[in-house]
């Protein structure tokens, strides 16, 4: 594996499968009386959050703590940190505090890339979501969830079709998923009104469509993205009602899906907008499970990036 996890494209297929396999073993920890491993004892993980995201931060925090790492939560949101100089200053502060890993969430696309490449800090950098760029651990947990249900928790995802529905243009989750699903042999299908698909989508990995109803019957999983109300004001679509009518997942649409098909959502859900309560709570929905899987996957990432010496995976590792 590479030293940092900044983009889903940092992972080869072997890397990605290794993360999922490792997560599978680590998931068993939560059934034990002692939900903790000594692996990262004495190592410091900093959660550097320039943007609010309680879910992601808690997930990384739980993952770090289950591996016995020391966790420092650094919330830079609301402070006057907006200029680049401060990212450098912050990085250097963390460096002198002896951070071994920095989990960074930032509103600016590319901020984790800078942290990983600018020699401001030696720590391993894990991208916990940057701007409208990527969110690789979310893609890993989605892949884990899909694999667990549809591939008996083993191997890759070859042959699986996944619809990613909603605000593809602004979604870091969609980008990372498109890359990782392709890496794992699955076919992502981006579904959105044309205004919410990026220019050049036809050259992305996978397929795209403007029509959810055409896509639903042929997919094995559907991933509903959160649609922000403010997009409406920027004329990406006329009204919430119209969006919901065309791209919302409701009970009738669920019926048109295959029996085994999964419903995923990275959360937090806009019930009534992109997904109805009925669907969110249906037997096809794995939304709640995604949260638990998030902890296992992040433990796996932390272990694989931080658990050994700072070199590549050993020959006896696979």
């Amino acid at each position: 594996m590479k030293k940092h996890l900044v983009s889903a494209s940092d992972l080869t297929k072997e890397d990605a499968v290794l993360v999922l396999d490792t997560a599978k073993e680590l998931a068993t920890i939560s059934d034990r009386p002692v939900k903790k491993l000594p692996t990262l004892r004495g190592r410091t993980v900093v959660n550097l959050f320039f943007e609010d995201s309680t879910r992601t931060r808690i997930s990384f925090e739980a993952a770090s703590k289950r591996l016995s790492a020391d966790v420092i939560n650094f919330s830079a949101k609301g402070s006057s940190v907006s200029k680049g100089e401060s990212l450098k200053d912050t990085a250097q502060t963390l460096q002198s505090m002896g951070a071994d890993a920095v989990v960074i969430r930032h509103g600016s696309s590319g901020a984790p890339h800078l942290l990983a490449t600018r020699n401001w800090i030696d720590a391993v950098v894990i991208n916990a979501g940057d701007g409208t760029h990527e969110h690789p651990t979310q893609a890993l947990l989605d892949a884990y969830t899909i694999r667990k249900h549809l591939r008996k928790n083993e191997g890759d995802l070859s042959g699986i079709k996944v619809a990613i529905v909603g605000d593809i243009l602004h979604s870091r989750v969609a980008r990372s998923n498109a890359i990782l699903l392709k890496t794992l042999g699955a076919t992502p299908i981006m579904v959105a009104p044309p205004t919410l698909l990026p220019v050049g989508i036809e050259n992305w990995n996978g397929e795209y469509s403007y029509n959810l109803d055409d896509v639903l019957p042929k997919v094995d999983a559907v991933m509903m993205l959160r649609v922000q109300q403010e997009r409406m004001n920027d004329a990406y679509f006329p009204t919430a009602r119209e969006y919901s009518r065309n791209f919302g997942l409701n009970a009738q649409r669920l019926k048109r899906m295959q029996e085994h098909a999964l419903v995923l959502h990275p959360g937090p859900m806009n019930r009534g907008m992109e997904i109805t309560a009925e669907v969110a709570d249906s037997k096809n929905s794995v939304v709640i499970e995604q949260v638990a899987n998030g902890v296992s996957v992040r433990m796996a990432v932390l272990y694989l990036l931080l658990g050994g010496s700072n070199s590549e995976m050993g020959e006896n590792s696979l």
Partner: protein
Amino acid sequence: MKILLKNGSLKGEKNVDLLIENDKIIKIGPAKSITDVNAEVIDLSGLIILPGLVDLHTHLREPGREDAETIATGSAAAARGGFTAVHAMANTLPVADTAGVVEQVWNLGKNVGLVDVYPIGAVTVGLKGEKLAELSAMADSNARVRIFSDDGFCVSDPVLMRRALEYVKAFDGVIAQHAQDPRLTQNAQMNESELSGKLGLIGWPAIAEEAIVARDVLLTEHVKSKLHICHASTAGTVEILRWAKDKKVNVTAEVTPHHLFLNQTSCESYNANFKVNPPLRTNKDVEELRKALAQGIIDVVATDHAPHPIEDKEGEWQSAAFGMTGLETALSVVATAMIDTKLMNWADIARVMSERPAEIGQLADHGRPIAENEIANLCIVDPEMTWKVDAQDTHSLSTNNPFHEMTLKSKVVHTIFRGKLTMKNGQVKK
């Protein structure tokens, strides 16, 4: 004070000797034909003599942002790049929108004395795009402003643009438009493309430039005025310019060295030294811009030298400032892009970096033929030198040069400004 230039190649053609006295060229003869014991003799064997370069688009930052650049440091960088005249853009603090400010810039340039600094006046008060600045007062000032631009912002209101184009006809002025539709480029960060989608950076569509260029070409034709397009960056703009020139619309255009040399893939590094307005485009755009420059569809090269302090450039892409420095590397970049590729020769370089810019700026003493009794504004180039750019090695106060670590061919070695060596053997005489 006399200077005797021996055996230099005139625009890459015949070799000559050239004698300068005071500020004038007093004698030109065949190679090794002139001797003068009282003159400082400089051997130009293997070097090329061009007219002193003229930049139509320079941000000198003074007054207001003397932390990024001053007229003195910008002039030194210009001299080092082979320039003898630069046009100082109006987006200073305060904005160059009154006779007072443009005269201040004019005088500061004169005091430094390394290049002629010609101020560009703002089109609208405070660059706000709301009402016209006192264009006529600036034209009548000692600075004798002829080019007006809100550069950094587009004069996007079509009525205001029409009025500006009409108004400057009274004193034969030209409006230099920064063509960028503001609504199509809200928060935009890089060229809109598959890559902007992948990098998660808000796209800046080519159409945002082309729509304004097309509109303004039509307006210019309608009111029979003069338009100059700043930093053309897209193949589509080239198409519109081709059409306009075909129709004999009075439009000229510039392209920057960086748009002739770099493309959007540089953005993959999230290194904000590649963040510029207009953004770096695709390889195809670069190719079309080169061809257009060679064919004269694009008239001139202008640097859009835009210095910024480190703190405005080293952070996250979205919060970084737009712009690149370029005075010191301009000729080398253009030569590498255009001569190495056989698209142009040295006479063409003289045309696009000196003669045409001086014409557009209506400068009497620049971009003139290299002939007896002309003012001695010269740029001497070593066409064979290959060198690696070091952004830290600069006379500018800023180091945001995107060509850092790149290898370029040809370099300016001497600059003569009004008969004086402002740079000799790469050393600027401050």
